[in-house]
C-alpha cells in the first residue's frame, strides 16, 4: 500500500519541489543557462524586492477568506437545515456558476462593474452615485473577486460538516431549555468547526497565490505575489528569483497552516462548551 502512494508523492511532489529548490539557489541567465551556486542571496533579494506584494497578498487572502466565511456560513446552514428534499438542487445551484471558466467569470464581473456599465451607469445617471465612483481597479474589487471565485471551496466543507450534525443532539439541547442562539453557539457552531477549518485551508491557500483577479479587476498598487512570480518567470526570465518567491510563498503557507492547525484543528468539542 505504501509503495504506490509513496511513488506518487515522490514523482509528483518531492521531485518537483527539489527541482524548484535547486532553481531557487542558482545563478545565471537564460542565454548561458543557470548553475547551482547555492546562492541564498536570491531569497534575500526576493524579499527585499517584493515584500510589499507579499504582505498585500496576505492581507487580500485573509480578508477574502473572512468574507467567504461570513457569506457561505448562512448559505450552507440554510441548505443543510432548511433545504429539505431540495438540498441537492440548492447545492447544484450554488455550484452552477462555477462550471464556467474562472477567467471568463472574472471577466464577466469586469463587464458588469464597468464604470459606465449596466450597474454603475444607471446609478450615476440618477445621481445616486458620484460620477467619479468606481468599483473596478480598487483593492476592494480584487478582494471581492477572490472571495467570489473561492466561495464554493468554503461553502461545500461547511455544508458537509453542518449536514453531518446529528439532529438529536440539537433536539437534546432544545429539551434542556437552550434558546436558539445558545443551540447555535454551544452545539451547532462547535460541531461545524472541522468544516470551517477545511474551508479556510481550501480558500486561503489558493487565494494567496491567485493572480487572475488582481490582473483583471485590479488597478495600480493591487499587484499580488502571483503576478510577480508570473512576471519573473515569463517576462524577466529570472527563474531563480521566481523559484525563491514560490518557495517563500509555500513556506509561509505551510507555517501558517501548521500554526493554524495547532490552534484550531486539535480542539475537541469540550473546549467550546
Amino acid at each position, binding site marked *: 500500500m505504501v509503495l504506490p502512494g509513496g511513488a506518487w508523492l515522490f514523482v509528483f511532489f518531492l521531485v518537483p519541489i*527539489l527541482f524548484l529548490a535547486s532553481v531557487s539557489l542558482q545563478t545565471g541567465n537564460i542565454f548561458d543557462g543557470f548553475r547551482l551556486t547555492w546562492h541564498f542571496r536570491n531569497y534575500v533579494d526576493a524579499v527585499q524586492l517584493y515584500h510589499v506584494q507579499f504582505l498585500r497578498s496576505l492581507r487580500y487572502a485573509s480578508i477574502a477568506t473572512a468574507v467567504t466565511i461570513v457569506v457561505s456560513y448562512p448559505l450552507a446552514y440554510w441548505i443543510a437545515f432548511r433545504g429539505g428534499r431540495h438540498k441537492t438542487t440548492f447545492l447544484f445551484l450554488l455550484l452552477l456558476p462555477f462550471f464556467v471558466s474562472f477567467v471568463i467569470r472574472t471577466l464577466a464581473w469586469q463587464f458588469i462593474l464597468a464604470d459606465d456599465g449596466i450597474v454603475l451607469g444607471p446609478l450615476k445617471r440618477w445621481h445616486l452615485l458620484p460620477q467619479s465612483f468606481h468599483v473596478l481597479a480598487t483593492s476592494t474589487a480584487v478582494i471581492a473577486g477572490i472571495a467570489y471565485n473561492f466561495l464554493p471551496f468554503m461553502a461545500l466543507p461547511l455544508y458537509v460538516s453542518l449536514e453531518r450534525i446529528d439532529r438529536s443532539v440539537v433536539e437534546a439541547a432544545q429539551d434542556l431549555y437552550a434558546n436558539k442562539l445558545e443551540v447555535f453557539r454551544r452545539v451547532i457552531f462547535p460541531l461545524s468547526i472541522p468544516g470551517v477549518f477545511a474551508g479556510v485551508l481550501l480558500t486561503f491557500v489558493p487565494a494567496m497565490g491567485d493572480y487572475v483577479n488582481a490582473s483583471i479587476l485590479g488597478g495600480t498598487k493591487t499587484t499580488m505575489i502571483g503576478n510577480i512570480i*508570473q512576471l519573473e518567470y515569463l517576462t524577466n526570465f529570472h527563474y531563480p528569483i521566481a523559484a525563491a518567491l514560490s518557495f517563500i510563498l509555500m513556506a509561509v503557507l505551510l507555517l501558517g497552516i501548521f500554526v493554524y492547525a495547532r490552534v484550531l484543528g486539535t480542539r475537541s468539542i469540550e473546549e467550546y462548551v
Partner: protein
Amino acid sequence: MSNDQRPDFIDPALLRGLTQRRVSRRDVLKGMGAGAGAMGLTAFLAACGVSGTSKSSPPPSGSPSPDVLKKIYGNGTPAGQLNFANWEAYIDVNSKGKSPTLLQFTKETGIKVSYKTVINDNDPFLAKIIPVLQSGGDTGYDLMVITNGGPVERMIKLGFLTPLDHQYLPNFEANASDAVKNPSYDPGNKYSVAWQSGFTIIGYNSKAVKDKPTSFADLLNPKYKGKVGMFGNNQDLPCAALVYLGKDIQTSTPDDWKKAADVLMKQRNDGIPRSYYDQSYLQALENGDTIISQAWSGDLFIAAAPKSYGGDGFPEIKAAIPGEGGILWTDNQCIPLNAKHPVDAIKFMDFVYQPKIAAQLADFIWYVSPVPAAKDIVLNDIDDPLVAKSPLVFPSADDLAKSHKYKVFKDQAEEDEWNSIFQPIYTS
C-alpha cells in the same frame, strides 16, 4: 488625420483581450524525472540546472554561410505545407471567414496553409516554445509573428530562429519600406522580416475628452485623474515617458531612465492612471473605464468601426498622434529553429511583399504596412482612400522620421537594469 474612417470590413478583435497570461511551470519541470532517485540530494540539486543554449551554435555575427543556408533550404523546393502561428485579427478575412491572401497563396504555390491564431502575447507564447527548442524539438510552426523590443532579439540571441536566405526574398528587397529594412534589432534582416508595424499613440473618448490630446503630457493631466490607461510593459510605458522628456530612447542613459521613472511614479502616486493594461486596455477604453489611454494604432480603428463592418462600434473613440511622435514597433515574421517547412515559410514571407497582396492586407489590418507601394493600390484599385490616406497605415516620411522605436538592449545586464527601474511602477 481623420478618425471617423469607415473601414470596409474588420475582423472583430474582441477575443484579443480575453486571454490573460498564465504562469507556466514547464520550464521548471522540464527535464525532471527519470533516474533522479539514484542520485544524492546535492547531486540531484546540481543536476537541476536550467541549461542555457550556448551549446546550439550562437547566432553568427556575420551572414550565415551559403552552406548553412543550402542545408536549410535545399534547392528551394517547398514541401507543400505551411504551419503559421499568428495573432488574433491580424490577417484579411472574407465573408466566409477565409483569408483571401492565404487562399491565393495556396492557389499560386500549391502550399497548403494551416493558420492558427495561437499568439495572444509574446512572452507566454515564447515560454511555450522555448523549452521545446531547448530540447532540440520542432515547435510545430514554420512561421510565427513576434514583436521587436525584446522577444525577437531574445530569440535571435538564443539561436532559436532559422537564418533567412535572401535569394528567396526578391519582393522584400524590391518593395519593403526603409523603415523595416535592416532594423537595429536584426541588422540585415538575417532572421526576420516585418509582418506589420504599429504606433503606440494616444486613444481617447471624444465625448469625455474635449480637447484633442497633442502630447504624451496629456496622459499626465490631473484633469483625467483615475481615467487614464497606461501600458504595463517594459517598452510602451518607459518609452512614452522618455519621449515626453525629450530623450532619445536608444541613446538614453540610466539617469534618463530614472528621471522617466520618476515622472511615471509621480503620475501613479497622484492616482492619475486607473491601471496598467495589456491588450485589455481597449476594452477599458470602450467601457468608459478609461477616457484617455496609451493605445496601439490599429486597435483604435477596430474600436471606432461600426459593428456592421466588423468593428466594435464606438465612434467616439479616436486616435491622436502625440506631437513628440508615436512609438513605432514592428511585428516580425520569423521561422523558428528546426521548422519542418522552411522553404514554404520563406516563400510566404516574400509573397506578402508583393504590393498587391500587401495592399489587400493593409486594407484589412489597419496597422502600418511594410510596403509603401501598396498605398496606390489601396487608393486606386481597392478604392479605399480613407485607408490609403491614413497616416497610421501609410505614414509619411515625416511621420516616420518623427517616430521613435522600442529600446534595443545591448546586453542582458542593460535590459535587467532598465526593467528594474521601470517594473516597480506597474508591479507594486
